[in-house]
């Protein structure tokens, strides 16, 4: 039987991993909520962000946490420009085209990464990578605790941005009422690109928080995005709080599942949840019926 003393560390660990999943899911859910598309390039762009962090470390010795000052902003610009140029123009305003464009983008980006960086896994060696803190009698890696706090702060910042700024109001307005938005003078292309940019910028934060404990390789985004997609569906498409909650649930399920079923089967629980949600609550935990 599993007792509490090993269950607790596992749950805490799951929460920290879940926070990182939530970060990836937050961008996905934001982009879905505003542009009504599933961004298939999300994983590839996470990979780009992680390589950025890696090379900043490798070439300039920049610590991943200091890279927080650069990488999110760079990813925001990449996202903004991608939407303003390729995605926005190639789609001709049709959702199914956008889907294909983002899918195509992800293939191009990943193959470029394979070509230039080869498929080797790369790590960033930080002096604190193996530091641990004790929490309620459980030992947690310091980078994971930082990632947890960072993810919560990011979610809080996004929430404030969406609720209390002109930009946030414009984004939410445009998500539901395009004609009304144009009539108050909201520049549709700009706000779409801002939303995409912010979603991708959050990936930059995720990458900085990830790299002290994860490694990077050209397909690293796949696993994350599959889980992030599950979280978005679980939390309710377009819901921020849902993404955060979904991230925690998935993280804990994965960790506890790993404990019970063994490391390699831990993710089974995620897909069981995914299927149960699709069957019984297709709008997600916090989503609204269409």
């Amino acid at each position, binding site marked *: 039987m599993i007792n509490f003393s090993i269950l607790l560390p596992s749950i805490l660990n799951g929460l920290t991993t879940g926070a990182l999943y939530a970060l990836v899911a937050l961008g996905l859910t934001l982009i879905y909520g505003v542009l009504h598309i599933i961004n298939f390039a999300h994983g590839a762009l996470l990979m780009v962000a992680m390589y950025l962090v890696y090379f900043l470390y490798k070439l300039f010795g920049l610590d991943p946490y200091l890279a927080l000052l650069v990488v999110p902003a760079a990813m925001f610009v990449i996202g903004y420009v991608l939407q303003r140029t390729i995605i926005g123009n190639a789609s001709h305003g049709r959702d199914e085209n956008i889907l294909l464009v983002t899918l195509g983008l992800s293939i191009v980006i990943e193959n470029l990464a394979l070509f230039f960086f080869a498929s080797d896994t790369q790590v960033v060696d930080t002096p604190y990578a193996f530091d641990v803190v004790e929490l309620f009698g459980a030992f947690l890696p310091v980078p994971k605790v930082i990632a947890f706090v960072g993810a919560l702060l990011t979610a809080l910042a996004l929430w404030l941005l969406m609720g209390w700024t*002109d930009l946030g*109001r*414009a984004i*939410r*307005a445009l*998500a*539901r*009422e395009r*004609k*009304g*938005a*144009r*009539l*108050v*003078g*909201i*520049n549709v292309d700009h706000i779409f690109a801002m939303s995409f940019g912010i979603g991708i910028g959050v990936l930059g934060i995720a990458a900085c928080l990830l790299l002290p404990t994860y490694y990077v390789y050209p397909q690293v985004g796949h696993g994350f995005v599959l889980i992030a997609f599950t979280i978005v569906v679980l939390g309710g498409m377009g819901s921020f709080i849902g993404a955060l909650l979904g991230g925690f649930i998935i993280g804990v399920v994965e960790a506890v599942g790993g404990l019970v079923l063994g490391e390699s089967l831990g993710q089974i629980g995620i897909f069981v949840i995914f299927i149960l949600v699709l069957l019984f609550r297709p709008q997600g935990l916090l989503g609204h019926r269409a």
Partner: protein
Amino acid sequence: MLEVTGLKAGYNRVEVLRGVDISIRPKEIVALLGSNGVGKTTFIATLSGLIQSWSGEITFKGQDITRTDAASIVDLGLIQVPEGRHIFPNLTVQENLVLGSYRRGRKARSANLERVLETFPRLRERIRQKAATMSGGEQQMLAIGRGMMAEPELLILDEPSLGLSPLLVEEMFELIVELNKQGMTILLVEQNVHLSLEISNRGFVMENGAIKLTGTAKELLDNPDLQKSYLGV
């Protein structure tokens, strides 16, 4: 204030506006009349820069705005309250109103908000309510309130009385007169021919994508053609 000459526009390849000529002078209330599907909404969509015209010219306050984008047209003070309201259903009443001043300075906002809430005490009571949960009449007030937040010089109202009870329709027309007294020029698109001509200085009758008839409100009310086709007399 607004001069439109030979305006043509449509959707895809289908021509809807076949050369519209209209002029509006400052401080006027002008009614744009016409039966369903003649192109009234299309016309004002072109004015607001929502759709591009094919040919013709629009000048507003002496400035050519034929190719100007929607946001810059809002900046100039040409504001539209659209048919079907198009308020933001997922936002609160307050957020809807604040977005009305999206292109205006932060300082002007609170003054604008106060003015709108004076005009519509109902909106003040429901300031934190989601717009989607408001009644039809309240939503219409919100749509007009959002338009007022943009400090319009020319306010275009597309069928503001649609779906309102007779009492509210009455109030709506009183409000339009009141806004006009405050200095706004008004272009009123209406099916309610009689009521709208009663408060208007002049009127235009659109038929088949062009202006068929124009004159002072009195002339139009007395016009036998108009009486036959629109007033059912």
